[in-house]
C-alpha cells in the first residue's frame, strides 16, 4: 500500500509540474488535470477502497496549494469536497455492477 501511495504522490507531483509549466503554453483555458485525475480516481476506485479517492484528493490538493497563490488548504478543501460529494452520490444513488466487481 505504501508503494501505491508513493507512486500516486509522484504521479500527482509530476502532473502538477506539467500543469504549471508545460500545458500553460497551449491554451489559457486548459483544464485542471489534477482535479480531473482526482474526480477520475474517486469515480473508479473500488467500492470498498474509496479512501483512495480521499488520499488522492489530499495529495492533489496539497500540490496545487504548493504551486498556487492561495493559502495552504484551499485546494485540499476543494478536492476533498469533490471527493466526498462523488463518494456520497455513488453510494446513495449509483449502482454500477462493474465498480462492484473491481
Amino acid at each position, binding site marked *: 500500500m505504501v508503494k501505491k501511495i508513493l507512486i500516486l504522490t509522484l504521479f500527482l507531483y509530476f502532473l502538477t*509540474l506539467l500543469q504549471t509549466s508545460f500545458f*500553460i503554453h497551449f491554451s489559457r483555458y486548459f483544464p485542471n488535470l489534477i482535479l480531473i485525475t482526482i474526480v477520475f480516481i474517486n469515480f473508479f476506485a473500488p467500492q470498498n477502497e474509496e479512501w483512495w479517492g480521499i488520499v488522492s484528493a489530499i495529495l492533489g490538493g496539497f500540490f496545487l496549494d*504548493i504551486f498556487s497563490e492561495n493559502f495552504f488548504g484551499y485546494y485540499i478543501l476543494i478536492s476533498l469536497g469533490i471527493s466526498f460529494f462523488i463518494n456520497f452520490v455513488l453510494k446513495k444513488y449509483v449502482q454500477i455492477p462493474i465498480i462492484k466487481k473491481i
Partner: protein
Amino acid sequence: MKIPLRTKILIIVIAIILISSLNFFQKKVKNFFYLISEPIQKVLWQAGMNTSDFFEAILEVKNLKKENEGLKLKIQELLSENSSLKELRKENEILREALNIGLAKEFQLNLSQIIGKDVSRDSILINKGLKDGIKRGFPVITPEKTLVGKISEVFDNFSKVILITDKENSFDAKVVDSGIYGVIKGKGNFQAYLDLIPKNEEIKEGDLLITTSLGGIFPPGLLVGKVKEVKKLDIEPFQQAEIELAFDIKNLDFLFIITNF
C-alpha cells in the same frame, strides 16, 4: 480494506490540522518544493514554449503570406519613421548638452527566469527571491521594457509575480498621444481593460498605453499595451476600453525585476 467512519473522520481532522499548521511556515515549505522542482520546471517551461510554437506555426501558415505583406509595408513605414527619429535624437542630444541635463537615472534591473504559472490566477513563479534582494512590490518588466506585473510574494530563492491582468490588480495609466488618464484593471485569463476614462475624452483603437507615476506602484513610461476596443455606454458614468497587452506570457522566458526606480 474497510475503514470505520469514526476513524475516517479522525484521519481527515488530523490531516486538516496538519495542513492548516503548514500555513505558519508556508514560505519555507513552498521554497523547498520550488527548489527541488526548479530544474524540471525549467525544462518543462522551455519544452512547452517550443511545442506550442511548433503547433502555432503549423496553424498559422495560412496567415503568414498576408502577414508578410503587411509587415513589408510596416517596415517601409518604420524606416521613414526611424530616419525622422534619428534626426530628433540628434536634436535632443544637442539640446541636452545645451541645457546640461544628465541622462535619466536608469533602472536597476535583476534578470530572472519564469519557471511556472499558478493554475487559477494570473500569477507566475520566477527564480529570484529574498537572497537576490527581491522585495514585495517590485515591478517586473520584459527585456523590451513592457510592464508584466509586480512581485506579490517573496520566498528565499523564488518569487511570485502577480500579472497586471490579475483580477486584484489595478493601476494608473495614460494614453501616449492624448495624455488621457485612466485606471487599468485586470480581468483574469491574461485580459485587462482601461476603466474610469472621462466620457468627454476621445480615445481610439490602437492608442498606446503607458504607466504613470500616479500611485507610485510602477515607474512612469513603461509600455502596457494598446487599446483594442472602446466601450461607451450611456448608463455608465465613464468609458471603458479593452486592452491588447504588449506581452504574451506564452512567449516569455526571461524577465527583469526593477529593484530601484
